[in-house]
């Protein structure tokens, strides 16, 4: 359990955004995630991005499925309506919500279990429909809330908490998203605020489906084999008693590296991850090249981060459906009910 930093007293000198609001106004409830969980960093980044964009929080709807990641909408944007739906099916709920009111911001938060297993079908189809929303997958390669089973994004041949190998091809959600027609596809790391915040901002400003795959390490159920000294007692204790009992209090991981550079990140369990930040000169305009880039880097054992694909042709589901401009949830009886006279015409057509 940890805080999305929230000092107690209101400080009169806190910086304000265009709406005259402080960061505090974008915060949420106390997080109940494990100390150091990557998901909390993502929540902070969301808070910061919304603050910076001066988004009126009540004009944003936050939605999620089920999982540690899907709990996080409680921990940011207190003034937004939230919807913690069922496991894997946030996309459909978000679609309905968006159809009802095209004028709000929609921010979906999901996990890799939620998105790539039970929710894979809905995830694929929401992209085809170009729903105007930001979809963040807090990707930790594991099922956090149900205690560390492999997810479908887990690297092939990595080891689970119980020492078993993952034996299946991992699903690269970013590549999949590009293949299936998402207009804005990015990848980042939970601890890289400098990259993540601007990406969330850009995604919120994009019209169409914006997907951000955020590598967000799970402190507790790390899926890697190597382990550093400091963890020994805990791991061994847990292994000895046969179940997970002690969870260390960890610091959140943060990184800072320049565009075009690579960085090796030590994850909580001591394993390493090689991130590579896309160069300024990288052109995200081609679908095919973007997919190629992802697969290339993967072969090299590198994870590229940054905005990987951008379709400039911003068009969303409402454009396709030719929905009227006024949000559907604001139409009144006179807009909607044709009335008795029209009904009489209908009667005629059946007589």
């Amino acid at each position, binding site marked *: 359990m940890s805080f999305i930093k929230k000092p107690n007293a209101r400080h009169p000198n806190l910086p304000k955004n265009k709406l005259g609001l402080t960061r505090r106004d974008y915060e949420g409830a106390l997080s109940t995630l494990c100390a150091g969980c990557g998901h909390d960093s993502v929540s902070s980044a969301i808070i910061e991005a919304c603050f910076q964009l001066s988004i009126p929080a009540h004009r944003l709807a936050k939605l999620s499925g089920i999982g540690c990641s899907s709990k996080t909408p409680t921990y940011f944007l207190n003034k937004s309506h939230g919807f913690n739906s069922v496991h894997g099916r946030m996309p459909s709920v978000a679609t309905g919500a968006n159809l009802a009111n095209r004028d709000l911001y929609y921010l979906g938060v999901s996990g890799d279990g939620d998105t790539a297993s039970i929710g894979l079908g809905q995830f694929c189809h929401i992209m085809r429909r170009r729903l105007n929303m930001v979809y963040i997958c807090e990707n930790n390669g594991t099922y956090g809330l149900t205690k560390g089973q492999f997810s479908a994004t887990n690297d092939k041949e990595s080891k689970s908490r119980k020492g078993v190998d993952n034996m299946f091809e991992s699903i690269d959600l970013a590549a999949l998203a590009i293949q299936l027609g998402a207009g804005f596809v990015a990848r980042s790391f939970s601890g890289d605020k400098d990259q993540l915040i601007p990406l969330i901002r850009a995604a919120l400003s994009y019209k169409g489906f914006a997907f951000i795959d955020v590598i967000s390490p799970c402190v507790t159920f790390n899926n890697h084999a190597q382990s550093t000294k400091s963890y020994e007692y805990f791991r061994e204790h847990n292994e000895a008693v046969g179940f997970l009992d002690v969870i260390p209090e960890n610091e959140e991981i943060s990184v800072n590296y320049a565009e075009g550079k690579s960085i090796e990140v030590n994850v909580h369990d001591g394993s390493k991850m090689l991130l590579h930040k896309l160069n300024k000169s990288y052109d995200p305009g081609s679908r095919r090249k973007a997919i190629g880039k992802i697969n290339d880097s993967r072969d090299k054992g590198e994870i590229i981060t940054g905005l990987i694909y951008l379709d400039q042709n911003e068009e969303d*589901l409402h454009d396709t459906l030719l929905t009227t401009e006024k949000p559907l949830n604001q139409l009144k009886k006179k807009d909607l009910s044709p009335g008795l006279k029209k009904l009489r015409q209908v009667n005629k057509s059946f007589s």
Partner: protein
Amino acid sequence: MTKVNDFVIKFANVNGSGSASANLMFAKTIFRMGIPVSPKNIFPSNIQGLPTWYEIRVNKDGYIARRDGVDCLIALNPQTYQSDLKELVKGGYLIYDSTMERKFPRKDINVIGIPMASICAEHYDDPRQRQLFKNIICLGALSVLFKIDISVLKGLIKEEFQKKPKLIEPNLHALGLGRKYAQENLSSDFGLQLKLMKQKSKKIMIQGNEASGLGCIFAGATVASWYPITPSTSLAEAFEKYLHMFRSDSKGNIKGAVVQAEDELSAIGMAIGANWNGARAFTATSGPGVSLMSEFLGLAYFAEIPLVLFNIQRGGPSTGMPTRTQQSDILSSAYASHGDTTQILLFPSDPKECFEMSVDAFDIAERLQTPVIFMSDLDIGMNDWVVDELTYDDKHNFDRGKVLSAKDLDSIEMWGRYLDIDGDGIPYRTIPGTHPSKGSFFTRGTSHDAFAGYTEDGRINAENLLRITKKFNKSTKYLPKSIRRNAKNKTDVGLIYFGSTTPAVDEAIDYLSEEGYDINKIRIRSFPFDKTLENFISENDHLFILEQNRDAQMKFLISNELEVDINQFVSILNFDGSPLTAKFIVDEFKSKVKNNKKIIAKVKKSRTAA
């Protein structure tokens, strides 16, 4: 035999052969002649080449249920000659395509051959045209035999093809060919006749799904998310049609949105999302879809999100009989989802009620903030029924239920999403985006307190669940009432029924009363059950329940929910997938009476009392 305006005609065809539109025109002509008519389409789960039947009952007294026995069989499918023939009554007529001469192994019927294919071959070269016009030629011949008012039929053809006017002439021509053949070759003493009648009230001929789709338009539904499945598909399609017809804005954009989802899990999720966000949204499906939707139904129930779900029932279990009718999703709908859940059900009995109840369903769902499951079936949904014209009260305003506006929120000190302020169990809800600082909350399917906060305190959760029960129990005042009709003579025998069996019941009750059995009847229109049904049960000592399923699901629901002894009821069950006949009910009733001593006593008593 001569029968006027009282017989059954059955067409035996092959799927995809062009018979459907000709058959429909035949039925519609009868309808336009003012004669009560009831066509039933019996079709396979297939696209082309399999047997399909169209059974038209004509009845001057207005009985529109199916009737056993066929007076005139138009046998155009050699595959099914044998079995079709069995249904023909003694002295009935068999009409067939005599291009190829055939023998039929029955002496007690009249056989009329019309060389349809050869007439076609004579007049049309293109094999496709031959296929198309064969049915119209047949229609022409029938119009002569049945002495149909030809101006009505011609008028209909003109209307049907008004969007493709160049098809009018060829069709009239084919019709003429058939008429000519009949006039020149068939004797005029055909025993079945159609005679113009005057309708007592203005009627229309319409399918339930069409009426429901239209009802959703009048109810102000703006979002429809659905996945194709027989027999619900035509409902969503009708909604979409009327959406384009009635809801285009000045720019040609649409005041509404229809999404064909990737499956039923998604279809209901979308409808829930839209309702949560303050739009009136619905989804339509059938059995397999309802099963898939059951997890989400639990969420909507527990998080208290309005939702209208059209369940157009078909034959179950599993994929079952996709093109047959049943009332067998009652329990799985009433108690949809794991955990303690109870859902509101509506039971329409004909297309007119489909329209009305569809309009009401959205008011009910929003008033009660819970799913409303509309329990129609294939018979109502996909068959053409003759019903009174639809009406709508322009003065009726949408009941959006307890939704707080920005102003409301400004004036409220403390608000809790699940607080029971009014003592009716119905809390106040807010729509996202309403107010900059008040009224936001977290909707969830996990246990929560009155402020929508997550709680693992079992007592708080239990209190919340009890409030929902209270809301449910008090909901009857918003629901369509049962309709009760007492027998002319005092009796303590009652029949409970609902939905598409209504016409059969009406007819059966009349027959039984002629035979001296007086029966009170009540038609259930919604669940939870109302006081009217409760009283009916306590006032009638012996009760029959008629339903179209194997397991007597409605009986179970009633005994459980009204806490009445299940042994008080005698079930009349049918689950062969066909719309019921009055005869079936009469026979079942009489055999139950004969076999059950307790009932004998009851019924005897009421008969002698009469």
